[in-house]
């Protein structure tokens, strides 16, 4: 990686404990930058609120997938046993819906589960191989807040990113170590 072609991605500040991180995060949210994120070794209660995150749309994906699953299961069984190849089983009507219910139930669960996972990956933009691990310690015992340099300014009412100002700001919040992060290629 040649040093003269480095592109700045943002500035990251490292903290030693979750309480300071949480308090700092509240200030970062208040400061109204366009893009920021937190990196912690384990979930911190209250972080969602501190980051000002809205409820995830994931439950709606699950609901839609569940409804699709139950409908598809009924349609498949109805079509095979009533329309395409009706077979008389024990004198029961062709459209014996109680017998369809177990498959309808299972497909509801299957579709909900699969699409919840896929939806989660999509909403979290995973897998993301483009980003290196900023520092191994954030998977172990340190907490990080990163303020990103927006690639494109989407919301002009947000506070503009100014590298030296952001560095100072993170230091003022109690970051023990503040570093610049540069973009890297794959691997």
């Amino acid at each position, binding site marked *: 990686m040649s040093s003269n072609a480095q592109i700045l991605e943002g500035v990251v500040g490292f903290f030693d404990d*979750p*309480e300071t991180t*949480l308090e700092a995060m509240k200030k970062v949210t208040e400061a109204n930058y366009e893009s920021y994120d937190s990196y912690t070794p*384990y979930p*911190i*209660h*209250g972080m969602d609120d501190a980051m000002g995150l809205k409820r995830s749309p994931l*439950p709606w994906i699950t*609901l839609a997938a569940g409804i699709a699953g139950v409908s598809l299961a009924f349609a498949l069984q109805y079509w095979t046993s009533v329309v395409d190849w009706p077979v008389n089983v024990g004198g029961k009507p062709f459209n014996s819906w*109680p017998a369809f219910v177990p498959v309808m139930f299972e497909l509801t669960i299957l579709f909900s589960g699969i699409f919840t996972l896929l939806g989660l990956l999509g909403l979290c933009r995973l897998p993301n191989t483009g980003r290196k691990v900023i520092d191994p310690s954030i998977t172990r015992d340190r907490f990080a807040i990163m303020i990103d340099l927006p690639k494109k300014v989407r919301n002009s009412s947000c506070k503009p990113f100014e590298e030296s100002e952001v560095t100072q700001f993170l230091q003022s919040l109690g970051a023990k170590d503040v570093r610049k992060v540069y973009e890297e290629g794959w691997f």
Partner: protein
Amino acid sequence: MSAHSHVEKELVNPGSFHASGRLKGVLFLCALVGLAATAGAFFTDTLRAWPSFLINHFYFLCLGLGGLFFAAIQWLTGAMWSAPVRRVSESFTAYLPVAVLTTVVIFIGMHDLFHWTHPEVVKGDIVLEGKAPYLNEAFFIVRNCVFLLAWLFFSHKMIGNSLAQDQDPGNYRFNLKNRVLAPIFLVVFGFGFTFTSFDQLMSLDPHWFSTMFGVYAFAGLFYSNLAITCLLTIYLRRKGHLKEFVNENHLHDLGKFMFAFTVFWAYIGFSQFMLIWYANLPEETGYFLRRMDDAWMGFSLVLFFGKFILPFFWLLPRAAKRSESRLMIAGIFMLIAQWVDLAWLVQPEFFKDGPHIGWIEIGMFVGFAGVFGLTVLRFLSKNNVVAIGDPRLQESVFHHHQ
């Protein structure tokens, strides 16, 4: 997780709950009205009075016993989340001694309720003669008494430990004692409640059998118990007694439980129905045929939609499980649905022409509800409304934030 950040406050014991004289008066009036309705019913229409009494007897037995079951699984698992609401559940066991009385009344009415008690019916009937070693009056009375007394014993012991802890706050030995008693109780409860439901509900049609019937009855027991626990918790919270202890996260957990057991009931109920429908054996299908003919099909659909579909979609959104008012609507609705379920189990064995819900059934329900309410209020007025001595309480109250 980030537990250190919370400043731990001293919990103030809210003490016992003394209901207003008006509420007690209303409940007392309910009990009187119910007593009058019961007496009136037995004088005018014995044929309807007995099934109605059985429905209401079993309904409130489930509420009282369910309170002990809920508390027992909390002790067994050492649950932290439920510490502030466990005493609410315990308070329902105050009704259990009344359930002994109503069971005795059921014994008196055996000949009107269970036709296998008539020797002339059993004689010559191969199935009933074969079942006679189990289905006979003496054994019926003995085993139903044994189970009820065993539950009362465990209730006395475990609730006793819980109340003793209030006087000796933070003493973990009471949790350990109940953790030993709870699994024994749960085994006794599992067998006892299964046979009680076999005896008092399933044997109304002595030719029919379903090995799933016990778990079906249990699904209803826990369903209604969660609903009433949630309702009383919200009531005490609004009265200010649980305000410092129960926040919306506790309500959310109760709501999730209610939602889960709505699905559980449907799962069990449908599994029982589908296996019998699919196998189509003559000795099994009669039970459901009776409930699916013209006179009863509408009521069966009301049960299915009312007990499963509506609460399912009502409780599905996260916001519904965190809102007091929406949970209250769910709770009241679920309590009605459980009553409809018991009427569905009992009445088709007596009335071929569809459901009978009139002054006899509602009057008796009002009476039982009055007595139930008075026993629970009496418990709450003598004991703390929250298990103030439980070492897990502090953690649950302050750390149950998201």
